[in-house]
């Protein structure tokens, strides 16, 4: 009868199914393709936005892409004196450090959007100790033994960050308060707190809310000056990466985190206290943010401003998520984002565009990288001719 019609109504042209598995090589290839497409599209957008590029398109485009290389390597300088590469390594390390901090919680499906504030609190904690113990800090003479001060600053940084991370964790564990929104709000409380403290500490002749602690940094005499802190930071963060990898993969805590993240029911079945794991894991996150804060406060900037973390707390979420919460994968993703940042900063100075231009480029490329996850997780199944529907709606 109207069998024909019925057949044509059988199923839509294609439908989506979740992929059962995908080899990690293919997954990384898809991501690489996304980065390349993103770079191409960002070139196109840059072409539209930058007049200088349009004047001489051929050379301009070549120069445009060359900037990503120049952003991390100054031509003709040896490695140890190459300022660009060290800035790249340091930026990557700092981003990676915060990304490490958010990872344990994310693995547990606790969406901590508060790394920015938690790191900032770490900085504030360290600086508070310095201000408290070194009243003459601004006059550059110290009254406390160097290493004692560093140790105290470290302790204070870790403590402040941990408290900041712990507050939302407790409310999540006890009352199931939405952690995404809670931690997000805590960022802005932290920023205003920093503002307030800077106002309190302001020197008589200071108008902007920022402080300088130039003399509170690490000193390694046997290396050239700008490598000093950078090398320490890079090594410290690499060690942390390794430790976190071990923690997540080879310890009982890490195992519990994985089970809770996968299924709360399974966790209960195996006798894991979900509340305890949430709180303990956020303490770990807080400690790592504290380390990042200490590195910022003591090793790097030697200043404190409310925007010191510079959005790294948010970018870290991306770094962690893109690497599927694998600490070693995060080395790659944080390096990628740093290359994009530095390269596009180079572009903005070379082509005379706004200093906000890097954000635009990074944004575009990340849109593609985020979007490509879809092709990793889902499969598009086209209707097969003369083959009856199988499992179109099987659960």
């Amino acid at each position, binding site marked *: *009868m*109207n069998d024909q*019609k*019925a057949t044509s*109504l*059988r*199923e839509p042209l294609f439908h989506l199914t979740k992929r*059962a*598995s995908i080899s990690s090589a293919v997954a990384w290839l898809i991501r690489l393709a996304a980065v390349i497409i993103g770079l191409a599209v960002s070139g196109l957008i840059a072409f539209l936005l930058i007049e200088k590029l349009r004047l001489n398109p051929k050379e301009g485009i070549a120069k445009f892409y060359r900037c990503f290389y120049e952003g991390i390597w100054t031509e003709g300088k040896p490695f140890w004196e190459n300022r660009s590469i060290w800035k790249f390594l340091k930026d990557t390390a700092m981003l990676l450090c915060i990304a490490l901090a958010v990872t344990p919680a994310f693995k547990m499906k606790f969406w901590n959007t508060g790394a920015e504030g938690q790191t900032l609190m770490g900085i504030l904690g360290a600086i508070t100790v310095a201000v408290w113990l070194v009243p003459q800090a601004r006059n550059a003479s110290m009254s406390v033994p160097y290493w004692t001060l560093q140790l105290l600053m470290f302790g204070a940084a870790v403590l402040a960050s941990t408290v900041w991370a712990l507050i939302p964790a407790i409310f999540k564990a006890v009352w199931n308060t939405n952690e995404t929104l809670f931690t997000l709000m805590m960022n802005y409380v932290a920023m205003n707190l920093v503002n307030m403290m800077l106002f309190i500490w302001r020197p008589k002749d200071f108008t902007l809310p920022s402080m300088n602690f130039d003399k509170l940094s690490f000193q390694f005499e046997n290396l050239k000056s700008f490598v000093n802190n950078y090398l320490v930071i890079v090594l410290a963060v690499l060690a942390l990466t390794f430790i976190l990898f071990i923690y997540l993969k*080879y*310890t*009982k*805590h*890490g*195992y519990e985190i*994985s*089970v809770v993240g*996968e*299924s709360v*029911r*399974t966790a*209960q*079945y*195996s*006798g*894991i*206290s979900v509340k305890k794991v949430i709180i303990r894991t956020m303490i770990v996150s807080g400690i790592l943010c504290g380390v990042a804060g200490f590195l910022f406060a003591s090793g790097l900037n030697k200043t404190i401003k409310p925007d010191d973390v510079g959005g790294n707390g948010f970018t870290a979420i991306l770094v962690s998520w893109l690497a599927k919460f694998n600490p070693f994968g995060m080395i790659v993703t944080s390096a990628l984002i740093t290359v994009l940042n530095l390269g596009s900063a180079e572009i903005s100075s070379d082509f005379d565009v706004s200093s906000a231009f890097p954000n635009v480029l990074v944004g575009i490329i990340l849109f593609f990288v985020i979007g490509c996850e879809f092709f990793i997780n889902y499969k598009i199944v086209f209707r097969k001719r003369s083959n*009856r*529907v*199988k*499992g*179109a*709606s*099987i659960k």
Partner: protein
Amino acid sequence: MNKKIALSMRGITKRFGSVLANNNVNLDVYQGEVLAILGENGCGKTTLMNMIAGIYFPDEGKIYKEDKEVVIRSPKDAFDLKIGMIHQHFKLVDLFTAAENIVLGVEEGKKYNLKNVNNRVREIADKYGFHIDPEKKIYDMSVSEKQTVEIIKVLYRGADILILDEPTAVLTPQEIDRLFEVLRRMKEDGKSIIIITHKLHEVLAVSDRVAILRKGEHVATVDTRDATESSLTEMMVGKKVELNIDRSEPVNPAPRIEIQHLSLKNAEGIDVLKDVSFIANSGEILGIAGIAGSGQKELLEAITGLQPTSTGDIIFTNPKKDKPVSFFHKSLARVKFLAKQGAFHDEFGNEVSFNGLGAKAIRRLVNNGKVLFKEDEVMNLRHKTPLQIRQLGIHLSFVPEDRLGMGLVGSMGITDNMMLRSYRKGASGFLNRRKPKQLAESIIHELEVSTPGVNTPVRKLSGGNVQKVLVGREIAFTPKVLMAAYPVRGLDINSSYTIYHLLNKQKEKGVAVIFVGEDLDVLLALCDRILVINSGEITGIVDARRATKEEIGLMMTQTKDASKEGNS
């Protein structure tokens, strides 16, 4: 019968993978009748109805509505054909009122006005005798009220064919009476009602005709007035199938776990278990038979400490008599305390009190196996968490129904899943994967699990292999009690026999095995005793070697009456 046909199905076949859910089913539904669809769990009743309601699409066969062929691809198509189904799991927005849920998704072409909707809902309710407040929020409602909302939702869309999937499973007897009254009125109004059920007395009370399904096939359709409970049961369960399961006689059965007057309510406040008492013996397999959702899951979860109970005790007897004490699960303080109570003796039968001994000396004695229990340990597991039970040194193994959502971690490999129970061992903060890996390898080898490797996520394995991994782990835990909920569901014959064999081996080792099953043939062939549970109450405990399928089938479906025979 000179009534008009409302809906007919011809040659409907549906497969899920290799499983044949429905095979060449032909069925007619008349206008103005109540048709009961009767069958055991997994016989394909719900799948068949889902194909009319647009949830599934048949692989073969045709559906006719009033003699016209129709294609139903989505619930919306079904609604447009005036077919509505009330599922077991209600699909309602909790935050909305009844009326808001009812009007959701309806295109009326009129201006939306909640007052009009409320009035219209009241009209429908009055017409058929529902009791409902259209302005009440769903989260404030009882299950029966939610069901009413679902039924009105279907009526509001003008449905003239209503399918109800196990509507009485969640209702009290009074509510059931009221529901049947409503169904009769709808019937008088010319609507066709299909009711899926396994409760025989309800079938007899409310339906005009009964269609019986068995193993995906339509066995017969009979007029209700010609049917009796026993004739229906016979058709439903079919002839006894002989299974080739080796069953040994229990050796020295002794009470291992005793459930006393256990009751519990679920999150919605419904009584799921009502005053349940029974004993599971060591060296024996106790089967639990019952319609799905009669409280089996909650019973097992209550024993393992996953479900809070309202009343009752769970008495566990640990066969420790004359066995050495170990520090494995007991702290020094606990050992000292028990010694003071006079719980221990030495190998010569003299009481051990540790008087005047230091910690070191006590440890030495215990570690050398010189301290023995005088009696079996008896403990009450009521209100204990799974971890507390473990810390008492009690090994309860549990193979839950939801294998990947509860028993295993889908994204982890077999090795890591082996650790789920044992990872806490040792004082170190690090995991020791050596033993779990050995265990994983031996399970793969002995149970013939086909997997690319010990680290392949178990989610990627087939159902049978997943179950072998889970059961293998639970057995490796050297349990005193092994509980398994539907351990062979969805498994092929070979895997099923592997599981039966494993359970039998455990029984022979003296483990108390509790087996929740759905296939009566299996229960009769595998178990020593069968406990029948019906709506959270025990309707009988029978000797599996002597009981018949019909007998158990009746106990599963009838409400509690004189059929209580056999005993514990």
